[in-house]
């Protein structure tokens, strides 16, 4: 995926991807976010997630580590923070070529659901998206999205390896911090 050069509007470490999704939506940003998981505990954590926006609404997702695009890229990126975030703004139309790659596209509310787990934000994003689109299209898409969210949560819970890795990392973190914080365990 070839991204146009953009203007850096935010660069920081975030623990919750919700931050960037809200930021992009509030700014009505046309541009893209690069999200690089800081830990590399899981194999698919290696690499960077790319999420593009059109007036604040996510359009395309891609993961450089797994070379997957669309919803699978969001699954690769989910629950693997904290992330190094860089958010870029581009001129209107600069992402047209990227946004025409349907295979990489994600439904408008999916990033809010999967990366942030925020159903209200997903609704707001879908609402924003529907403003510039014909009535009816998004209602159908919203139903499809709800169904695929459930599927994604089930797939996550079926991935025993990823869950064990999350637990293992949390256990190690808890032990380290207990020592650091002086808790007796």
């Amino acid at each position, binding site marked *: 995926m070839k991204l146009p050069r953009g203007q850096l509007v935010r660069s920081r470490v975030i*623990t*919750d*991807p919700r931050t960037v999704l809200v930021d992009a939506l509030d700014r009505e940003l046309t541009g893209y976010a690069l999200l690089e998981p800081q830990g590399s505990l899981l194999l698919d954590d290696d690499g960077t997630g790319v999420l593009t926006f059109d007036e604040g609404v996510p359009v395309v997702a891609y993961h450089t580590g797994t070379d997957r695009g669309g919803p699978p890229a969001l699954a690769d990126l*989910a*629950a693997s923070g904290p992330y190094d975030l860089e958010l870029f703004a581009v001129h209107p139309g600069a992402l047209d070529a990227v946004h025409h790659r349907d295979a990489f596209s994600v439904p408008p509310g999916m990033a809010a*659901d*999967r*990366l*942030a*787990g*925020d*159903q*209200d934000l997903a609704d707001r994003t879908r609402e924003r998206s529907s403003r510039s689109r014909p009535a009816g299209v998004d209602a159908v898409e919203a139903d499809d999205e*709800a169904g695929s*969210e*459930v599927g*994604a*949560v*089930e797939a*996550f*819970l*079926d991935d025993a390896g990823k*869950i064990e890795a*999350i*637990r293992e990392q*949390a*256990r190690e*973190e*808890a*032990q380290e*911090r*207990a020592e650091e*914080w*002086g*808790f*007796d*365990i």
Partner: protein
Amino acid sequence: MVEALAVASGKGGTGKTTSTLALGMALAEQYDVTVVDADMGMANLLFHAGLADVETTLHDVLVEGGPPVEAAVYDRYGMSVVPCGTSLADFASADPTRLRDVVASLATDTDVILLDSAATLSSRAAVLPIVLADRVVVVLEPTIPSLSDGLKVQEYATSYDTGTAGILFNKVRDDDAIDRIAPKAERYFEGPTLASVPASDTVRAARRAGQPLLAYAPESAAAEAYREAVRGLSVRDGDSAAVADRFRSAVVPESL
């Protein structure tokens, strides 16, 4: 008897405070319940419980030379409620480690202590309620980030020898879906699914009205779900004096 339960989620926006007060009111039908807003950096229980204007809060009690905890206990909705203030300056001057003594002192005179915990695991003050509690109730939304954070909360709890009383799914929009998700989630959590609380505008309206859900809309489906959760939550008998001693002796650093 006394048992301290931390209501925790690891992630914001799951409805933890609503859940804490709802579980508290449902438990109060059988037990003497004390609810403490232990989310000291982002306190909001006072807004949910109509206590926004009270003079003395947990923050005051946690300051060296501050009043005894009794001054911050308010009888509301059949429970004893200890709200926390929202001023960052007060948070800065409060010493969260004193929470240990506060809990110990409250433990001598109640059946159940519910600690509304912070929606983060990133500081000592935030993790302290989980360390002090006997068990955690993990509040989850049926989303990947929420489940992931809930699992982290449980691992922290286990590391500090705190058990899992159960999981509570909140803001549930699809009953059929939760019937498939909950059994899969249970494989990883040490406690049962206590209830699935449906998403509802009533919950938001209750918050705007400054009332706990079970007072504002006791007949709502969400309120009934919390009562069902409590039926599955067997409060354990703990010897008050022993529990109080345990809280007092919990090893917590003096400076945060």
